[in-house]
């Protein structure tokens, strides 16, 4: 009997220790997964695809890429070594709330809705999905210059991008989060405008 008891106690201790280790030790930070907004990375366009669409540098300026992640790519625009602006393209699949600010705007640039955020940031929503943004740094940029930079991105090619999952015939699944943007009242005219906007010639 004492032998059985010993086994039971032994197994209980082992199970408690293993369970405790799994629950309490900080393994979680090293596990795979844990994506932004719990959206599978396959539904997000990789930042590599955005790199080629950035504007090329004018004389005396340089574009230095600084970050590239799933659904995001960012570069710094430098003039004589000083950072004058942050240029970024992001996939709003993981941040649907970012699309709300475009719902009611009338201003357009090359057919896509344009928003000024605060004193230094301008953003463009392309194909109801990709946000292109220019944020003035340091002494700042005039709004006209920011809009000019936004227009210098290759917007047509950007509108044509699709996530990897969609190109493999998962269009319906990938498009689902796209159909969900808030501000439902504004959505219909927006969609009409979208189809009237310049589409890639492919």
């Amino acid at each position, binding site marked *: 009997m004492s032998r059985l008891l010993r086994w039971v106690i032994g197994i209980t201790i082992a199970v408690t220790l293993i369970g405790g280790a799994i629950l309490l030790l900080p393994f979680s930070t090293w596990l795979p997964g844990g994506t932004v907004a719990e959206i599978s990375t396959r539904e997000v366009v990789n930042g590599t695809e955005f790199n080629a669409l950035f504007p090329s540098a004018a004389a005396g300026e340089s574009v230095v890429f600084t*970050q590239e992640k799933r659904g995001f790519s960012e570069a710094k625009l430098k003039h004589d070594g000083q950072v004058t602006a942050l240029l970024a393209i992001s996939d709003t699949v993981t941040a649907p709330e970012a699309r709300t600010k475009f719902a009611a705007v009338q201003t357009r640039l090359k057919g896509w809705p344009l928003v000024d955020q605060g*004193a230094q940031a301008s953003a463009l929503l392309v194909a109801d999905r990709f*946000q292109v943004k220019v944020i003035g740094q340091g002494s700042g940029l005039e709004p006209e210059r920011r809009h000019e930079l936004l227009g210098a991105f290759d917007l047509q090619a950007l509108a044509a991008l699709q996530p990897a999952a969609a190109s493999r015939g998962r269009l319906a699944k990938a498009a689902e989060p796209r159909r969900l943007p808030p501000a439902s009242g504004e959505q219909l005219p927006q969609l009409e405008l979208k189809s009237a906007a310049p589409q890639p010639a492919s």
Partner: protein
Amino acid sequence: MSRTVLERLERLPRRDLTVLSLKGISTLVPGGWSNLTSADRLIREVIGSDDPELVRQVRARADQLSLARHEGYERALSLYDAVNRSQHATGGLRVLANVTAGVPLLKRIASVTPPGDTLQAVDLSLKVGAELLAFTQVNGLPGDSFADFGAALADYAGEARVRMAALVCFDGLLPLGDQALSRLDGLLGAAGSGDLRKLPAYGRMAALIPGRSDSEHMNFLRRGVDQWLGWAGGFVSQLGLTGQRAVQALESTLGPWQGRMDQLAAFLDAFTDTYAHTGVQAVARRLVERAAAEI
């Protein structure tokens, strides 16, 4: 553990030994350094606006991003923490060895502590390796070509000039002397993978370093250091950094120091967190730049 990057930024000390020694080193670097510990100030600086609603949105997005394990921001911080713990451990041992070397009965402690330039060189290479790994965790592999990647690295290092100056001075020039950078390669060549094993941080980093064995890891670190040396050599000669100047700069904030340079280095290793401190600030800035572009 699940503290976000911005929360960690706000918990950084405002004024302690770490901050004072960084202030001292920053007098050697043009542009200087301010101890940024306010997330809201950082956000306002990046977006160039005081609108509280925008600041709130950027902050919410930054917290969301830093909690997503896939994005690597937390992982970069845990790399810095591992290196920092290792630095405390080896620094503490060296301080102990210095203190006990003068006491006859305790002299033996000094002889069992891992002394020496080789270990210091391996420690520095581990830090440079951690820096490279953390860079890819935070920034991905920016650009389409290797030249783009190199430009991104140089840009990052330029942004974190005080951080790099602290790394060069505290882990290179002070403990290894003014010829530290040219000696480093030879010292690493002499180091075996056993020396790598002696460093506590290595255990935690090993899984993240490419390669399957200690010797492959050592190879990776040596290649990483080679890359870094090219940049650091230019940096040192451009700013005219020497051990003597570093001591003078530190004395301006910490007070007079009368011991040897390597003792000062051991003391700083044991009692300051300069590496993790500036690391959190650098990661927080990159995170906010991304969050600002995504809201």
